[in-house]
C-alpha cells in the first residue's frame, strides 16, 4: 500500500469526492491558488477551477453562511477555517444555523456541510491559533465532530464526512499533518461514529483523540517494557462517539485513562469519563483518570507550550497511577 502524509491523504479525499460529485465545492481563505496554508487543498484549484475551489475574503461568518446556504440548496460545501480559533467569528452560522436548521424546521431541510479546521497547538503559534475547542461543538446537538489520528483515517473519515447529510466539524491536528502512513487508494471510507482499537491490551484502556492517539501508542510501547499492557482506543468521531467500543474495553481492563488535548475543566475528556462511570462503575478497579491540556491559554515559548500540552510522560504517569491502586 502507498505511504503518504496526513495532508496528502486529506487532499486525496477532497480530490476523489470532487471528482465523484460535481456539487462538492471548497471555500475558504487561501484554499485556491495557494492550495491552503497547510497545503491540504493543493492542486485542486488547477483541476476544478475557481468556482469549486473558492478563495474567499477574510470573512469567517460569510464563509460559514456560504456553506450553510449552499448546503440548504443541495450542494455539498467543504469550508475551511484556517485555524479553528477563527471559527469564533462564525459561531452564529455554525451553532445557531448549521446545527439547528434541520431541527427547527421539523426535519424539512438538511445541512450537508463539512467545516474543516486545523486544531490545537505544538507549533508555537500562541493563544489565538492553538485552541482545542472540540468540546464546544460536541456539546451542540445537531453537530458531528470528527478528528482523525492517522493518514488512512484522515482520508476515510473526510470522504464519509462529505457524504454525510449533517454538519460535520472536521478537526485536523497540525502536528499530525506530516505524519506518514499507509493509505488505501480509491474509494476508501471510514464510517463516522465508530472508534477503533489501535492497540490491544489487557491492563488499562486509554481513550484518545487526534494527536493524543500516536502519543498514547508511544506511551503504551514504553509501558509494555514494564509489562503493563495498554489498550488504545482512537475515538475518531467525537460526536456521536462510540461508547460501546469504550465500554467493551473498560469491562475487560477495569481501568481507564482518557486523553484529550482540550482544556481539562468542562472538557471533552470529562464526557467520556462520566459515561464510563455511569455505564460500568462496578467493572472499574480504580477511578478513571483524565489527561488533558492545561487550563491555560496556549503560551508561545517552546518550554511553556510543552508544559501546557499533553505529553507522552503524562499518559505514562496516569497509566501507572491507575495500575498502582
Amino acid at each position, binding site marked *: 500500500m502507498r505511504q503518504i502524509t496526513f495532508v496528502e491523504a486529506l487532499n486525496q479525499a477532497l480530490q476523489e469526492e470532487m471528482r465523484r460529485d460535481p456539487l462538492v465545492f471548497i471555500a475558504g481563505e487561501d484554499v485556491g491558488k495557494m492550495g491552503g496554508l497547510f497545503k491540504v487543498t493543493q492542486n485542486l484549484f488547477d483541476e476544478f477551477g475557481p468556482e469549486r475551489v473558492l478563495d474567499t475574503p477574510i470573512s469567517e461568518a460569510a464563509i460559514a*453562511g456560504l456553506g450553510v446556504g449552499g448546503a*440548504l440548496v443541495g450542494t455539498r460545501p467543504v469550508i475551511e477555517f484556517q485555524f479553528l480559533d477563527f471559527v469564533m467569528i462564525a459561531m*452564529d452560522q455554525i451553532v*445557531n*444555523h448549521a446545527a439547528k436548521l*434541520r431541527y*427547527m*424546521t*421539523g426535519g424539512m431541510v438538511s445541512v450537508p456541510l463539512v467545516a474543516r479546521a486545523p486544531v490545537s497547538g505544538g507549533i508555537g503559534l500562541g493563544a489565538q491559533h492553538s485552541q482545542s475547542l472540540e468540546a464546544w461543538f460536541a456539546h451542540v446537538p445537531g453537530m458531528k465532530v470528527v478528528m482523525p489520528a492517522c493518514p488512512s483515517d484522515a482520508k476515510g473519515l473526510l470522504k464519509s464526512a462529505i457524504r454525510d447529510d449533517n454538519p460535520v466539524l472536521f478537526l485536523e491536528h497540525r502536528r499530525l499533518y506530516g505524519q506518514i502512513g499507509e493509505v488505501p487508494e480509491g474509494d476508501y471510507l471510514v464510517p463516522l461514529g465508530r472508534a477503533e482499537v489501535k492497540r490491544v491490551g489487557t491492563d488499562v484502556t486509554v481513550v484518545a483523540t487526534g494527536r493524543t492517539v500516536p502519543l498514547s501508542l508511544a506511551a503504551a510501547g514504553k509501558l509494555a517494557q514494564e509489562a503493563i499492557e495498554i489498550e488504545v482506543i482512537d475515538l475518531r468521531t467525537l460526536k456521536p462517539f462510540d461508547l460501546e467500543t469504550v465500554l467493551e474495553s473498560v469491562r475487560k481492563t477495569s481501568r481507564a485513562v482518557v486523553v484529550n488535548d482540550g482544556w481539562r475543566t468542562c472538557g471533552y475528556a470529562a464526557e467520556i469519563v462520566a459515561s464510563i462511570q455511569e455505564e460500568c462503575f462496578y467493572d472499574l478497579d480504580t477511578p478513571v483518570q483524565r489527561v488533558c491540556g492545561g487550563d491555560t491559554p496556549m503560551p508561545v515559548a517552546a518550554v511553556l507550550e510543552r508544559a501546557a500540552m499533553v505529553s507522552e510522560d503524562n499518559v505514562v504517569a496516569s497509566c501507572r497511577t491507575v495500575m498502582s491502586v
Partner: protein
Amino acid sequence: MQANQVEESEVSPLECFRQMCLIRAFESEILVLNQQGLINGTAHLYIGMEAIAVGACAAMAECDFLTSTHRGHGHCIARGLDPRRMMAEILGRADGYCHGKGGSMHIADITKGVLGADGIVGGGIPIAVGAAYGLRMKKKSSVVFSFFGEGASNQGSFHEALNLSAIHRLPVVFICENNQWALSASFLETTAGGSVAKRAAAYGISAEDVDGNDVEAVFTAVARATTRARAGLGPSLVECQSYRWEGHSVFTRHEIRPQEEVELWKQRDPIERYRRKLLESRTSAAENLQKIEAEVRTDIAEAVEFAKNSSPPDGRSAFEDIFA
C-alpha cells in the same frame, strides 16, 4: 450563465391587495390568540409593513428563494405558504410547518423556496448569499431574496455577505425593511450615515430607497433588482421605509416610541393607501375589495380552526430531527 426560462413577473393589483389583507388579518388574529394564552412563546408582528413582503414577493419567480427574519409571517404568506399550517406552527401543533419545533420565528417551506425565518438578526443574510452561490453552481437561474431589518445592517454578517455577493456578482436581492426602530433603539440613534441603501454603494452594489408602504413602488424596485440579478449583473439592495404598528413582539409591553409617530405612520397604512389607489384608478370596485376582505376573514377563521383542531406533537418527537 445560461438562463433557464423564467416568466417575467407582473403585479396583480387584486392579488396584492388580498395578500396584504391576509397578512393583516393573520397578524391581528395572533394578537387575539396570544391574549387567550394559546401561544407558547412570542411572535413578532408584521402589521404596518405588509406592502414590503407582498411587493417584493410579487417580483419573485417560482424558482426563487428567500431568507426571512424573526418578523417573518408576512414573507411566508406573500410567498404562498398555507396560513393554516403557519397558524398550527405558531400554536405549537403537529400539523405546523415544523411540527411545533420552530414556532413563529422558524417557519420554513423549502418547496416554496422559503429557507426559513430566523431568530438571529442578520443571520439569514450570509445564508442567502450561500444559497445563491449554490444555485448558480447548479446552473439554476434562481434569485435569492434576503429580507432583513435596518438593525441587521449594523451586524458584521451584513457587511461580510454584501462584500462576498458583490465580488462574485451573485443573484441576490437584499431587501432592507427599515421599520425605524429596533426594540427600543431608533434607526438614527444606532446607524451611522442614516441610510442602509447608501451603505451598498461602498460595495459597488446598486441600491434604491423606496416607500415601503407603497406596494407597487416596492414591486417596481425589487423587480428591477431581480431582472439585474437574473441577467448576471449581480446583487442589489432595496431599502423599504416603513413602520411596525405593534410593539417589537407580543411580549413587549413597554412602548418607548412617541405615540404621535406611531399615529402618523398609521395614517400611511399601506392597505388603505392601496385601496384608495385601486378605487381612484377604477382598477377595482369597492364591492370587489370588500369581497376579498370577506374571503380573507374566512381564510383566517379556517386557519385558526385548523390550528386549534390540530393535535400537539407527541412529546417524544422532541428528540427527533436532530440529525438527518
